[in-house]
């Protein structure tokens, strides 16, 4: 097994593209090292991207935010501008594992690990976040929801690496929120999770909405029919009930130790209502 710590993204892409055998990218390592220790994977090459300066920064520009692939989740929470603009995204990132884990783990790692229960992904999907992907054929920008294609599987081509997550500049009267359900209050895996991102008009009516559910299907679900229910509403009780029904109906969960299909469907609806209300309150304050 080789461990390489390149100092530029070009080198990382080159190493990844030319690696013989199985290659793995190491950022926080909170999934990779655990899987290696458990004997589930044994990479031939490990490419540690933490020494690439550009990947370790959060940049705010005219278009919004660029979050480098090696930025630990804890750092997201310390960025006041990001927290104010995208509180739901930050909420998701700061629910992963423990404080110690958050000091290492990254949202890009969470995305590429492609767990349906990934905590940071639903809020990114609801936020309409995009991933800046660099590969042997150059760069491309794609919606985050197109990256995981099933548990543990991504749509990234061989040699491709996510350089950063892009979040739009926040519009007025916008807000997002994320909640997950876990039996234990922390250090637990989401049974179901929900994220809602709303933009209101000056009258407080929802103009744009995106609703995402986690752990409810093989990949994080973007539930457009649920978003359609919120658009045109003031997130009143009637809209919330229909939202919950739409979310429950959209779920395609599994039965496991953490919850049954029936329970997950119910909880998806309950959480969607709760996060929609929080997102609405946050949007109204801006």
């Amino acid at each position, binding site marked *: 097994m080789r461990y390489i710590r390149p100092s530029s993204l070009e080198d990382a892409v080159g190493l990844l593209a030319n690696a013989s055998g199985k290659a793995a990218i190491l950022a926080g390592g909170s999934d990779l090292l655990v899987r290696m220790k458990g004997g589930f994977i044994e990479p031939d090459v490990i490419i540690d991207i933490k020494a690439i300066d550009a990947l370790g920064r959060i940049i705010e520009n005219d278009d919004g935010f660029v979050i480098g692939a090696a930025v630990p989740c804890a750092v997201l929470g310390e960025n006041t501008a990001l927290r104010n603009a995208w509180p739901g995204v930050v909420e998701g990132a700061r629910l992963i594992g423990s404080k110690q884990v958050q000091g290492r783990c990254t949202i890009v790692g969470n995305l590429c690990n492609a767990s349906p229960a990934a905590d940071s992904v639903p809020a990114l999907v609801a936020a309409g976040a995009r991933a800046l992907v660099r590969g042997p054929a150059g760069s491309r920008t794609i919606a985050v929801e197109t990256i995981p294609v099933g548990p543990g599987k991504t749509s990234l081509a061989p040699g491709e690496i996510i350089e950063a997550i892009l979040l739009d500049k926040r519009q007025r009267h916008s807000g997002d929120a994320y909640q997950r359900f876990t039996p*234990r*209050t922390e250090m637990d895996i989401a049974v179901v999770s929900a994220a809602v991102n709303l933009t209101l008009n000056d009258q407080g009516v929802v103009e744009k909405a995106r609703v995402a559910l986690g752990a409810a299907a093989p990949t994080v679900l973007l539930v457009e029919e649920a978003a359609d229910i919120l658009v045109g509403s003031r997130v009143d009780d009637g809209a919330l009930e229909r939202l919950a029904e739409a979310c429950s109906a959209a779920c395609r969960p599994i039965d496991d130790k953490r919850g*049954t299909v029936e329970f997950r469907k119910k909880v998806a609806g309950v959480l969607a209502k709760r996060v929609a209300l929080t997102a609405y309150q946050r949007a109204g304050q801006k």
Partner: protein
Amino acid sequence: MLDRSKIVGSPVSRIDGPLKVTGAAKYAAEHFEPGMLFGHVALATIAAGRILAIDTRAAERLQGVVKIYTHENRPKAAYRDSKWKDAVALPGHPFRPLENDRVLFDGQPVAFVVAETPEAARDAAGLIHVHYAAETPNTHIVAEQHNSYEPPVARMKQFLPPPPRGDAEAAFAAAPHKVSADYVLPGEHHNPMELFAATVRFEDEGRLTIQDKTQGSQNSRDYVCGVFGLDPDKVIVKNDFVGGAFGQALRPKHHLFLAVMASLDLSRSMKVEMTRREMFYLSWRPSCVQTVSLAADDEGYLQAVLHHAVHTTSRHEDYQENVANWSGLAYKCDNVKISYELVKLDLATPGDMRAPGAASGVAALETAMDELACEVGIDPLELRVRNFVHRDQNQDKAITSKALHACYREGAERFGWVARSPTPRSMRDGNDLVGWGMAGGIWEAMMSKGEAKVRLSADGHVTVSAAASDIGTGTYTILGQLAAEVFDCPIDAVTVDIGRSNLPKTGVEGGSWTAATTGSAVQAAAKAVVKTLLGHAQSMENSPLAEASEEQVEISEGRLVLEANHQVGTAIADIMAAAGLDAVEEQAKVGPDILSMRRYAAYSHSAVFVEVKIDEELGVVRVTRVVSAVAAGRILNAKTARSQILGGVVMGIGMALHEEGLIDHRTGRIMNHNLAEYHVPAHADIHDIDVIFVEEQDQRASPIGVKGLGEIGIVGVAAAVSNAIFHATGKRIRNLPITIDKILESEAVQ
């Protein structure tokens, strides 16, 4: 003398705290020896059957591998079971690692790799292929409970059920109010921070110095010497620091056997540290099925108590704990029938886990008491008050002390119990249902035989030594406090030397008896030092203490003085100088007072009050408030004592809501053998816990008046949580842990 209480009782911070927080305190696996080898265990992947063949070829080829042991090449060890029995062994046949081809439980060691590095040993263990003839395992206690039996040999006499009194069945049938239900507890698994580990230093002339994770260094030494036929004078076992043990490290485990075996075989120093996974296969709280039937008259006075308990044991040993007897002594009742049986399953031998027996049995009893309170229609606290008894009816003995009324009163007041609305589902906080529940706790206040040595130097420095262990409970600190009290010195003038097998004899640390035992021994030895000093003082010319008796003197500010008049006395330095001594040293031996024990039984007691808030849409339970009021005699250190109770409460919350060993009964294998899947409460699950120690004087339980605190904190907590959940939801869930699915699926009583 001790009533001065300048130091004893006060919240002294742990004297070993700075070593622990700076990393200077070394645990068993943190010791290194030049040229040492490392061991790693390969575990069975079936729960019952035989090993047909073990292919170690690939493992042996791995660089760094020194030797691989299996049952086919294991060096000889003792033949007789008696040599394998440690001080707390069980009836039956002790487990012998790599003894033969028989697999008795999932996770049993089937091979042991010794290598130059821990990594090589671990990798090689993964390359060992074992071919089994697997048999169909039985691991389900509920399915197998009809195969239960009364243990033919008692582990301890007090674990046997008391003789029946009155006619419980007839009284139950005739009573106007009755409840009867089954309570099911899953197996629980120990997960102390520190993993089992042993570092063996192989020395000249066959001497071994072993750093072991154990609750008794002398127990480990005697085990090793028995099994390998070693001279006890040539083996020293140390356990200076223990990172939590809770009963799991009472008995020596296979890491110790394997480390010593390889060390002797290869004449090299050795280290073996278990993995977290291996911790799940050893000394676990047994799964348990209980039937509790209670009957009362219209005023709630108990008319009948019937408690039948069945718990798991292994194929090869009869593990026993006191599950059900508490039901015969917690409350006044003249018609009692208690029965206790075991069921053999294809699982590792269970073992003691914090308040073994009581944690399980009192959980059932105290839930049943709550059910009875509802049935009779009186407040659950009032039901308990009405049935208070100041006698151990099981043994027909008086009780040394029982300040349980104070626990009820002070606990209820602190909690605000009077504001409880009796009807289930009648209290809310916003969208949350609120439930208030309570339960009582009880644990035996024990003392064992123990010795300690105390040395007072002319410069005033004190050294206390005993082979006692500090398993995180604060033993170092309380022994230091007790000595500082006698010698009227600051605690930093006391060196506490414990955790070594070649120190004065001490039993294993467990059962909440260490403070009572070693604490009393330290006090006795310190008093013996004072007596010796007095003798030397009285040999001095014109001694002002010439007429004084040992009861009349004490030490104050470096002088031996008359208790009644501190002006009269002699400096310790002068006494020693006159006697030509650098120090005075005395050893003392203590033990339970046999005469007193014939007449009295001693218990610690508690009352636990719990508030839960339940998000009804999701079924999520949060334990938002706990008040634990404890009567445990004299409190030696307010801070470490509180910590003991806090830890017990947290563990009780885990028992109520989270902890459950999940077994795939088709294969007999434990599925959640890691901390990601075996849940204990996380920090965010724990809210306010308030600990009250009520005043309780007891000079019979132990010479220093303590009853012990290691266990009482957990007893009753699971029932109090369960009762609070019932109060919040109207749902009575009798199989722990009370997970969300059980809350959502069960029906509320009307």
